[in-house]
């Protein structure tokens, strides 16, 4: 074959690939997420009308993002677990346990002038450890994820209560350089809180992990068709363990953000996080049955919820009204997705 014809073929291939990937992008992330963007815009318009300038200001935008950051990090982890065909009900409890463990260890048990990075290490290790236990029980103990993580929900919070003696632990100067910790997690970078940057970083890392790595590909395979993944030679049990460790680490990060923000560690931290995270993931278009989902969708889902909360607060509406509305949004979003999905498959 001449070089020319080879080049022509290559060009045709490239063009085809471009067209295909453009189509793929349209029909997947953007297509499915465009609806979410529109929903978010409508909510913002409602916010601007009802709360005026108090809503539409840079400061308030940052407030919304700050509100979104902690639960957002957990939701990214949840996206992986759900795409992988599982569910994790224990995220809130793991956040509580991590927060209590790292405040106890760092403020009371460590030597003078220990670097605050020790707190980070402890929180992440506790999160990963809980995730490891979840993953092992599910993958090798053959306990369904719902039950295994329900058990972790109960026991992790229980352990957090025992460690903290049900008292809120204030982050006071003790062994560790607490000031450095607080400074790091509450400082601004380019006018934006470090916590928001952290959320953005976790979301970006999650996107790359899901879409560009073997780990992401395996996650989709395991959640999409467990048996096919197993017969294709994927170690599905080990991968399941990794998924729960991953969400555990996300909980550890969220715990650090909470500890810095509230300057406390408490066994009540992260209450109902599991519901908020699952709701955000589902709103974001991830299938609860696994195999399909996007990080962008989850981020939008989190933003929709935190913007709503913000609007309710600005309008002095009660928390109860907020919850009621959240429930309605979840149902509406899922109904809409099903309608869209059935139209897609019929055409």
């Amino acid at each position: 074959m001449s070089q020319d014809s080879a080049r022509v073929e290559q060009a045709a291939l490239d063009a085809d690939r471009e067209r295909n990937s453009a189509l793929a992008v349209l029909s997947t992330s953007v297509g499915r997420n465009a609806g979410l963007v529109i929903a978010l815009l409508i909510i913002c318009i409602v916010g601007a009308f009802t709360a005026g300038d108090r809503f539409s200001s840079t400061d308030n935008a940052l407030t919304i993002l700050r509100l979104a950051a902690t639960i957002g990090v957990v939701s990214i982890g949840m996206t992986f677990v759900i795409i992988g065909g599982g569910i994790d009900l224990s995220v809130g409890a793991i956040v509580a346990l991590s927060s209590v463990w790292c405040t106890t260890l760092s403020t009371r048990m460590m030597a003078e002038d220990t670097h605050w990075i020790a707190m980070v290490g402890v929180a992440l290790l506790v999160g990963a450890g809980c995730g490891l236990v979840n993953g092992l029980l599910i993958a090798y103990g053959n306990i369904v994820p719902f039950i295994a993580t329900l058990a972790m929900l109960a026991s992790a919070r229980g352990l957090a209560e025992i460690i903290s003696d049900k008292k809120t632990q204030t982050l006071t100067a003790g062994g560790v350089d607490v000031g450095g910790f607080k400074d790091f997690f509450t400082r601004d970078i380019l006018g934006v809180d470090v916590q928001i940057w952290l959320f953005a970083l976790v979301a970006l890392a999650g996107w790359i992990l899901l879409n560009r790595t073997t780990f992401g590909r395996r996650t989709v395979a395991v959640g999409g068709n467990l048996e096919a993944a197993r017969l294709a030679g994927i170690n599905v049990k080990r991968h399941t363990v990794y998924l729960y460790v991953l969400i555990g680490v996300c909980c550890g990060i969220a715990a650090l953000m909470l500890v810095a923000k509230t300057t406390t560690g408490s066994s009540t931290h992260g209450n109902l996080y599991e519901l908020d995270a699952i709701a955000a993931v589902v709103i974001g278009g991830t299938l609860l049955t696994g195999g399909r989902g996007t990080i962008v969708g989850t981020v939008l889902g989190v933003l929709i919820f935190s913007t709503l909360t913000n609007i309710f607060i600005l309008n002095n509406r009660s928390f109860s009204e907020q919850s009621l509305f959240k429930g309605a949004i979840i149902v509406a979003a899922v109904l809409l997705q099903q309608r869209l999905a059935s139209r897609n498959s019929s055409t």
Partner: protein
Amino acid sequence: MTQPLLQMSGIVKEFPGVRALDGVDLDVRAGEVHCLLGQNGAGKSTLIKVLSGFHQPDEGTITWNGEVSSFSTPAKAIEHGVATIYQELDLVPHLDVTENVFLGHEVSRAGFSQRTQARRQVRDLLARLGHSEISPTRIVGELSPAKQQIVSMARALSRQTRLLILDEPSAVLDQEEVDNLFRVIRDLTEDGVAVVYISHRLEEIREIGDRITVLKDGRTVATGLAVADTPTAELIKLMTGRSIEYVFPPRPEEDRGRGDVVLDVQDLALAGVFSGVNLSVHAGEIIGLAGLVGAGRSEIVETVYGARRASAGTVTVDGKKLRRGSVQQAVRAGMGLAPEERKSQGLLLDEAVFKNITVSSMRRFARLGFLNRGEERRQATELTESLDVRPTGVTRAVRTLSGGNQQKIVLARWLMRDCRVLILDEPTRGVDVGARSEIYQLIRSLADRGVAVVVVSSEIEEVLGLADRVLVVREGAVVHESAATAIDEAAVLDLVMEGKVPA
């Protein structure tokens, strides 16, 4: 002659890419046992599903009791008086016997269930079936498969059944239970109930049947044969008689030296399913495993592959002994499996073609865990072009491809890995006739490249036409091994059905 209770004529049922029924005629009279005979894939199951209202025929008419009728839903079929006992029993395991029998038509008054009355009726039904020892309050899941079948029968009798369809009922029964079943069938036919009886066991058909209809490739090849006047040889000829010519690629010359043994299986067993399986496959050789569904063929190859954990025996690839029950190790050693249930076991249907192809060789495209998607797509494109997968385009979802092209994607996955041993379980199931020859050609060319191939198929013709060496599996044991050219279709059929070669 009396008017038939059921008359089906010219029934056609098409599924995407496959014509499952292609003109079936069947007439069943009240009070007779009508046997349905045919090889796997002949269309028996589809026909039953049409009769019980699960599938709608695309063409043809069903006449019921002299009137043209449509069996548009299962409820409609039940209303007509059709009851089906499936091979896979369809009982609710957590409910008790009475609840199962009256499932869907509970005995009730004003919305309150009349439990005492229901139990009394069930007790009568069970007594009629000769199993009064089954308590109406037993949980069905605790009963043996044979007893569960009795419960299914009781369910059928609890309605006004006029046609009872039994799909391989004897598969779960021992001899005494089969005798009891036959007694019940004779009782029913005396009351004027028509029975459609499906079985692979010719001796049973001889004992209980009145007339026989033979299906082959979705067509009725003979109908209304009197059991008493039709010799076995004639039946086997009807079942195997070729109606479609497949083109099989030529085998290599006999004297061409075979390669080394690549796959060696010694005394492999899976407790309760099969035992004592020995198998060795040379490079460049195609081994065929023939046998009925349920004989243990799929279980054998899945155990070789590590998808099931062997209870005894060894599997060796290129001299390396594999750990039991480890698919990963089997894949690493160079084994590949194209599973029987392509859609549920083989493919990620909603994912792109290239992702399905590279899923077993991701490491090759990854650096530090990051995938080179351009390279993935390039190599997948090359491969799909060489396999002539249509329509082209490696980013399209696998779901949009036909059965034959989906099978090519599964094969491409293992070609991508350069595997040493390829196991193909029912490689042409759901593949239309035109694409079959292509798949056969592909399998042969793989062998020519030195791959050791194991093919499992219910279609004897396929095993004999494609393989170099044939193993016949019956009831969990290999009962015969020979060169494919040394045995013919009728002999294999006799082996799989009766376990012996005719004199």
